[in-house]
């Protein structure tokens, strides 16, 4: 039915299967959209946020998707600037995941602010001292870069590519991609860092506050670093999931292992830096403000020392060791475990830097404030996930995302020709594979 749009040399699931999958995810999306409209029309009273939790689930989701989307800028940096050419086989997918992550982040921000119609004041009346201003500018600019990186991929669709202008545009954009990638890396460095700075500059909150370099607190650098380290983990994890769903190999192991190894070393160095930072904070910064670790990790029902362990050891040291060690890295089970732990670790870090910051009492006579999200918050947070899946489904079906797919999954031309009309009438009992 849509075979004319499907890239040459690859096989895709039948249309009905595709639509069924789209329908299921679309239902989740609709639920999220309903919650989003509730929030927009009725206001933020639809959430469980309060005056102690001005930042909550959404900001965590924002920070987390931006960290996880860091795979795009970092693989771009590695491919276009450092010159790791093998990565061209995964860069498309990294860009797509990045695009999804960043567009999701912008959408969540648009839901999160109390006056979305005035959201553009952040640009118009920019306060250059605010980390959030820096985030907003760099985020939007980098989103533009990601769009620029994603456009050629769209233009490579079999039909669009037939249009000479689109073909040339795509070609030219590929040619200049290094410039965009460099700009993207520059912008990413700042907005990832600024997101770290968001918590680090809160000098009224000893739990979040960090000293630093010039105007940037240490969290600035830690966030950039961790995004570069864990972003590829997420790209690889999603690639692995896609392969499982598509039931075929899409990227060659050497590419996966290269990126996994780089990610491993990045996580390793990041974790050392994070341990240094935590040690300094626990022994110098916080005590200088009259607080110690017990003030932050005891006296409440949820936040205990376990969270430090889970973030730094389980989410840092363990995946770093797995990915650095060649035998473990080459073992798919271990490797995927490491990806999963890494993603968990960085997400937990973002959680701590948003939610725990809000939870810890600061004035000695204040109390811990715990929070759980409302269904509207949960739905609007799942909304981007559904949107991401849909975008991946469509992109995978119609765009040549994985350059190695055809080579890894050769199909006989005649068989394909014979099968295609057939599948339209006979129900395929196999599960959906796209």
């Amino acid at each position, binding site marked *: 039915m849509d075979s004319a749009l499907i890239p040459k040399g690859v096989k895709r699931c039948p249309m009905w299967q595709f639509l069924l999958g789209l329908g299921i995810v679309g239902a989740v999306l609709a639920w999220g959209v309903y919650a989003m409209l509730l929030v927009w029309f009725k206001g933020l009273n639809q959430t469980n946020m309060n005056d102690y939790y001005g930042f909550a689930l959404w900001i965590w989701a924002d920070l987390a998707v931006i960290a996880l989307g860091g795979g795009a800028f970092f693989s771009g940096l590695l491919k276009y600037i450092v010159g790791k050419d093998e990565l061209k086989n995964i860069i498309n997918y990294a860009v797509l995941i990045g695009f999804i992550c960043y567009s999701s982040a912008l959408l969540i921000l648009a839901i999160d602010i109390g*006056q979305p*119609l*005035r959201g*553009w*004041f952040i640009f118009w009346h920019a306060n250059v001292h605010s980390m959030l201003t820096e985030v907003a500018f760099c985020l939007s600019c980098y989103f533009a870069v990601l769009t620029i990186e994603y456009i050629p991929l769209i233009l490579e669709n079999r039909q669009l590519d037939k*249009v000479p202008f689109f073909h040339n545009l795509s070609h030219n954009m590929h040619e200049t991609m290094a410039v965009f990638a460099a700009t993207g890396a520059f912008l990413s460095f700042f907005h990832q860092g600024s997101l770290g700075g968001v918590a680090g500059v809160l000098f009224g909150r000893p739990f979040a506050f960090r000293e630093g370099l010039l105007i940037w607190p240490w969290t600035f650098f830690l966030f950039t670093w961790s995004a570069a380290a864990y972003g590829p983990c997420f790209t690889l994890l999603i690639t692995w999931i896609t392969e499982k769903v598509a039931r075929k190999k899409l990227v060659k192991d050497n590419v996966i292992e290269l990126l996994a190894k780089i990610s491993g070393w990045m996580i390793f160095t990041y974790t050392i830096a994070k341990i240094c930072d935590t040690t300094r904070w626990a022994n110098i910064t916080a005590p200088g403000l009259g607080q110690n670790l017990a003030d932050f990790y005891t006296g409440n029902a949820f936040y205990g020392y376990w969270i430090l362990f889970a973030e730094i050891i389980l989410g840092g040291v363990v995946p770093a060791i797995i990915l650095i060690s060649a035998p473990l890295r080459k073992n798919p089970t271990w490797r995927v475990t490491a990806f999963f732990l890494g993603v968990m670790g960085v997400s937990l870090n973002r959680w701590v830097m948003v939610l725990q910051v809000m939870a810890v009492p600061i004035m000695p006579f204040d109390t811990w404030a715990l929070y759980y999200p409302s269904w509207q918050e949960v739905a609007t947070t799942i909304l981007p996930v559904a949107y991401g899946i849909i975008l991946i489904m469509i992109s995978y079906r119609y765009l040549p995302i994985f350059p190695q797919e055809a080579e890894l999954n050769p199909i006989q031309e005649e068989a394909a020709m014979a099968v295609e009309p057939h599948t339209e009438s006979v129900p395929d009992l196999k599960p959906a594979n796209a």
Partner: protein
Amino acid sequence: MKVDRRSFLSFVIGGAAGTALSPLPWKLMDDSSIWSQMWPWTPVPPDGEVVYENSTCSLCPGGCGISVRKVDNRAVKIEGRPGHPVNDGSICILGLSGLQMLYGPTRIKSPMKRIGERGEGKWQKISWDEAIAILTEKLTDIRDKGEAHTVAAIAGSDSGTVPALIRRFMTAYGSPNFMRSPSQRDVDELAVKALFGGDGRTGFDVENADYILSFGSGFVDGWGSPVRMFKAASLWKEKNITVVQVEPRLSNSAAKATRWVPLNPGTEADLALGIAAVLVDENMLDTRAVSGLGSWKNDLLAAYATEKVSQTTGVAAGVIVDLAKGFAGANRPLALCGRGKGLVSGSLRETAAVYLLNALSGNINREGGMWAMPEADYIQWPDVATDNLASAGLVQPRLDGAGTGKYADARYLTNRLADSVNGGGPYPMQALLVAGANPCHDLPDTQRVRAAFARIPFIVSFSSFQDETAAMADLLMPDHVYLERYEDVPIGAGLAQQMIGLSKPVVSPQFNTRHLGEVLIATAMAMGGSIANAFPWDDYETCLEETLAEKWDSLMETGVWVQADTEPVADTFQLAGMDAPAVQAEGDVNSFPLLLVPYDAIQLTSGYVGEAPFMIKAVADTVIKGTDGFIEVNPQTARAAGLAEGERARLTTPRGEAQVCVHLFEGIQPGVLAMVRGLGHTAYDGHLAGKGVNINELIGPVEDPSTGFDAAWGIRAKLAKA
């Protein structure tokens, strides 16, 4: 024209680019942000000429001067009036909330008659003429049957021209049953009569005292004239004088005191007499003003030996001696009594014992001491010439029994009203007029009060608000609120001076309400005869102006009139009232192992008006959360009952039971529970109704055998997991 794919795409892309580059999106973006800055549903208060109007607040007996800021004809803010002798520019939380009452949706906006079942809330708006006609007809009917005495009236106060008009109306009509909401004023007046031999009240020169011994008086919880007391408490801090607060619970007053002496609830009189005994024993007294002490000394020493008092009160013997020495050692010591805000009539024994301490320290009618103030006497109206029907009614006994037999000394025993109506009285009540009072919420044992109200065939409420009593009425004749009317406000409330404040209409009446004074005059006119003759004024304002006579001009100008020199009731203190038995808490210790005591909070009103939304907003979440009301429990007691902070529990007393939430509080003795007074409204709107528990549902009046007054300070209780 053939549209091919290429030209279509060009059209779409070109169109999008063109729109984006045109000013349109930018203009829309800007417009939407401007629109979001002035949403039509967010009110924009109109500007106008600003003026300040001076008046007097009568929301509590405090009598503060207020200055109301107006923008054109809207009152926008109430502030304290600078230079006023009571509050000098300061104001309390209740006074500040007045405009929410003035403009609030729970005002009764017109006279109304009941058309549904009683309490059902179905009303029909009627005209004032019709309302007065209904009232006149009903009252005439009863009177013509020779049953004028079966009509009763309850007012919030008995001083000032409006209560005097009600009383005069009752007299001319022929009923002895004028009543006043109970308060510590009851026992205070009785004590002044018993101890000083004349009619009056006490006044306390708190500003000039240099040692304060307070027996549970909430000097920063709304006792006396609240703002004046707040100021005094700060003055005490500045002068660094010793303030001792004796009470079972760490109230805000206890926390402000230099020293908090917790004692067993209800044993204040014992402690006061124990201290008196130490003073006598150690001869640390000034007996000049006390008569009859000689023979009584030995009885006192025998009955109140320090060790014994220590056992009764739970206060260490050393502390009792300490307090006695501190009190005697000060130049101008002053002892205060009346628990919390003084909302309960109280025990004569306790009051007399505390006043005795003042007498023994020689501070009667002295600077920094306790004054026996005479009653204000500016209302000099000719006596009512009663006709036969009235005279016959007036000689009947009162429904509450006050003034006769064993209650000879009591003026009003409003606490006995419910029992009287429920069958214990000399005759049934046929009609009740209620003004400035909300007995269906404020009287103890509310269930019984409501049962009594259900039996009264005809009830008229003059309330400005849809309160619990108005809900039980048959006829609503809403009064103006204080910001809409003229009224004299005689200020008692523990002041050591005679003062009258003037309330002036700050804004014109917001609804179809009418001044109670006017309604009384109009009704009297309609009833005619001797009743009409008793009201020789054209309207209330004339009555007020004539009554205040030479004070009128200065009151109009300054808003307050202060009597230069007041002759005290008497200078000699006669011993009396202290041999009465102690008032015990109701209930059996075995079934009810705990004690429940009410406490007063300044964030809640002390009178008949319901709390404004602002006040409820200032109440802590450990007092009300959602609609749950809290009780304070010592953690030890809570642990024994298996209860944790915030947990729901069932609180049972001999009078009732309620679901409450537990708030752990180390400021209360184990075994004692405390609950704030004033919550649990069933009337008013969602900003107030249903929040917390009305402690009056759990507590009943306990009669002081020597006076008949309600002297309940608590009730036995039990607490279990809900």
